[in-house]
């Protein structure tokens, strides 16, 4: 695989670095160290054993053995989402590699920088259905930002440098590197390039908003009577939360985020409309529905945000700033598409406002309306004699004073976590949002806790999702990773049950997790299944079940005070629905408030 020589050589030409003689596997480890990697989640097997041997020879990288490759890959994603750095995981060929697939697709959907290394069979066996062979390069094609199958060990340094650049630059995403066993075993003297070069110009020169476009945005704001910001995950990827705060304050604009954008703008700020979309704040949805100017920053008009796109922000002029030009006019036609890094665009907008002495438009009637909605229709729930799931989240928020990293599985609990925990900082709500992969929560918490050992990291999970990667309790116990899980246990697949109740006449289609003739609940504790406390105990992890409302607070406090992994099994009724709700494909006018 020759690499085209490019005429883009920088003025001061950095020299490549020639390494000592080593084998391919050691070269891989050396490349990881050079990219600043200090932790990898890796599960060994025949085709990746050389790499594990090489990892055993270094003390610069902590190798964490997950108990399932999917757990390891979600942990790498949790690490990446919490830090903004590239997460790294590794698996052997065949079944090891296929177990990484969900995390790769997840990182692709949510634009998370992830590197997946996979062992591959000896290159002479490729294509022959050798033991544990799959064409991983081929099967991951639709869900990667890029991928490599290394056929020559000499290419390793260049490929790794490129791969890390691709994963973290522009709109981040997953990159896989498939490494045949003979490549790992080859002796070579590696040459580590100082720079990366690409034929595709988009990879080296990121698009930038033009001065005219920025000026036009300010004009649109000045003319608007009902403006609102729609802020997405791109703000977090580009590290633009401080710039957003300045921008919103200077231009006096209220901000509604997506779920990916949660924490990009402080939710306690008076200009915050929290998050909107299918289960988002009613006031956020009304604001976007009624506005006359919608400033979409780093988001992609996902169907869970827009509902029926024809009726989405129907009377608004729409500005869309995104680093990925292929997102412009994809789901929704916009007035002003701007290709560029959001942090750069916001910085320059802020400077432009100062230079021009920009006066925000008079939006008092609009903001009065928004604040009235915000006051009258907050996220709310009704008290019960039992612990309700929303209450458990709210109590966790209160006891952690909002200062924890929260991860989630997928379903009702995922929405309640975002509704009743307030996020004032980015990278605090880590959730599989585009793909919606159940089982994400606990391994993601494990990855985040490895990155931030001094912070509380809590997986708010469902009893369905938690079971999907429950084996990672072993990893946390053995590796002394104090990731905690608070299970909102309703003995059902709650979100599907909610849809059954709303749209399918409450007919249960495989949504009961225990014995359907004797369903466990706060009123029927003997039938609760499974016994999460006993499971945790088997893994050597402390656990506690809480059923009584009066014990909730103390139980959560005990979880927080425990110095080690912990499973708190909170028994809740299955009858709660996530509200508000805009049914799929419908509009804000169809929003269900109760």
């Amino acid at each position, binding site marked *: *695989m*020759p*690499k*085209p*020589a490019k005429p883009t050589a920088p003025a001061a030409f950095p020299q490549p670095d020639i390494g000592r003689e080593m084998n391919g596997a050691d070269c891989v480890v050396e490349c990881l160290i050079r990219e600043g990697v200090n932790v990898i989640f890796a599960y060994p097997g025949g085709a990746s054993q050389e790499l594990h041997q090489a990892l055993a020879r270094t003390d610069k990288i902590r190798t964490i053995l997950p108990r399932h490759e999917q757990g390891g890959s979600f942990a790498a994603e949790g690490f990446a989402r919490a830090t903004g750095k590239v997460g790294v995981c590794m698996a052997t060929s065949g079944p090891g590699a296929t177990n990484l697939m969900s995390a790769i697709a997840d990182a692709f959907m949510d634009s998370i920088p992830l590197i997946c290394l996979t062992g591959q069979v000896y290159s002479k066996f490729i294509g022959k259905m050798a033991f544990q062979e799959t064409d991983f*390069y*081929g099967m991951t*094609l*639709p869900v990667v*930002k*890029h*991928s490599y*199958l290394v056929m020559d060990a000499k290419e390793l340094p260049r490929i790794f440098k*490129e791969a890390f650049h*691709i994963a973290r630059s522009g709109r981040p995403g997953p990159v896989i590197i498939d490494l045949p066993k003979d490549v790992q075993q080859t002796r070579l003297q590696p040459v580590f390039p100082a720079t990366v070069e*690409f*034929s*595709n*110009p*988009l*990879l080296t020169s990121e698009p930038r908003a033009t001065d005219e476009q920025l000026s036009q945005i300010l004009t649109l704001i000045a003319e608007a009577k009902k403006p609102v910001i729609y802020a997405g995950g791109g703000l977090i990827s580009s590290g633009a939360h401080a710039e957003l705060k300045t921008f919103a304050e200077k231009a006096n604009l209220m901000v509604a985020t997506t779920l990916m954008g949660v924490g990009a703008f402080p939710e306690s700020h008076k200009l915050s409309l929290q998050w909107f979309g299918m289960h988002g704040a009613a006031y956020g949805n009304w604001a976007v529905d009624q506005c006359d100017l919608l400033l979409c920053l780093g988001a992609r008009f996902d169907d869970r945000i827009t509902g029926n796109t024809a009726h989405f922000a129907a009377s608004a002029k729409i500005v869309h700033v995104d680093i*990925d*030009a*292929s997102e412009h006019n*994809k789901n929704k036609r916009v007035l002003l598409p701007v290709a560029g890094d959001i942090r750069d665009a916001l910085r320059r907008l802020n400077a432009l406002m100062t230079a021009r002495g920009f006066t925000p438009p008079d939006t008092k009637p609009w903001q009065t309306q928004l604040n009235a909605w915000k006051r009258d229709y907050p996220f709310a729930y009704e008290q019960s004699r039992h612990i309700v799931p929303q209450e458990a989240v709210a109590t966790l928020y209160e006891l952690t004073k909002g200062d924890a990293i929260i991860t989630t599985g997928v379903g009702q609990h995922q929405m309640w976590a975002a509704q009743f925990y307030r996020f004032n900082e980015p990278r605090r709500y880590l959730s599989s949002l585009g793909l919606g992969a159940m089982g994400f929560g606990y391994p993601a918490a494990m990855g985040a806790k490895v990155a931030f050992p001094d912070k509380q990291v809590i997986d708010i999970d469902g009893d369905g999702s938690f079971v999907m990667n429950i084996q990672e309790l072993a990893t946390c116990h053995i590796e002394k990773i104090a990731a905690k899980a608070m299970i909102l246990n309703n003995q059902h697949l709650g979100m599907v049950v909610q849809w059954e109740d709303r749209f399918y006449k409450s007919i249960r289609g495989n949504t009961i997790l225990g014995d359907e003739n004797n369903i466990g609940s706060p009123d029927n504790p003997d039938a609760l299944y499974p016994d999460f406390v006993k499971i945790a105990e088997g893994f050597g992890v402390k656990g506690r079940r809480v059923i009584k409302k009066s014990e909730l607070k103390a139980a959560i406090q005990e979880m927080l005070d425990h110095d080690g992994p912990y499973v708190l099994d909170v028994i809740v009724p299955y009858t709660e629905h996530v509200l508000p709700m805009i049914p799929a494909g419908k509009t804000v006018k169809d929003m269900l408030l109760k």
Partner: protein
Amino acid sequence: MRHTISVLVENQFGVLARVAGMFSGRGFNIDSLNVAPTHDPLLSRITVVLKGDEAALDLAIKQLRKLVNVVEAVDFKADEAVVRELMLVKVKADTKARSEIMQICDIFRTKIVHVSAGDVIIEVTGDEGKAAAFLKLVEPFGILGLARTGVLALKR
């Protein structure tokens, strides 16, 4: 509508699969596809002809441009590019029919590149209209085999 899309890519394994996947993953049926190196052996040009929904295709092209190994991707408008195709067609030709076939070849300025006792292989170059007209005339003799490059296009 029919589109002729030209994609300049790095000449590496897997690139064709990525480009083709961008169309197949969206349910586009490719009418023709050609790939070969350019004057720079490190680069190849892929020419794809397909029919499809305007907006969906526009998105596919924008997403093509994001692929690491893609240098450029263009959807040629009518007359924006020179468009040609090479076709090899084997026609049944006994001694009686041969001279008549040769006459048709002359008129179409095509070349007979192989002759055997019972058939000839003819090389046809031109736009798709010419290929279609030629095939219509030789069809009565009996077409025994056909291979074509698919459309090649180069910006004027």
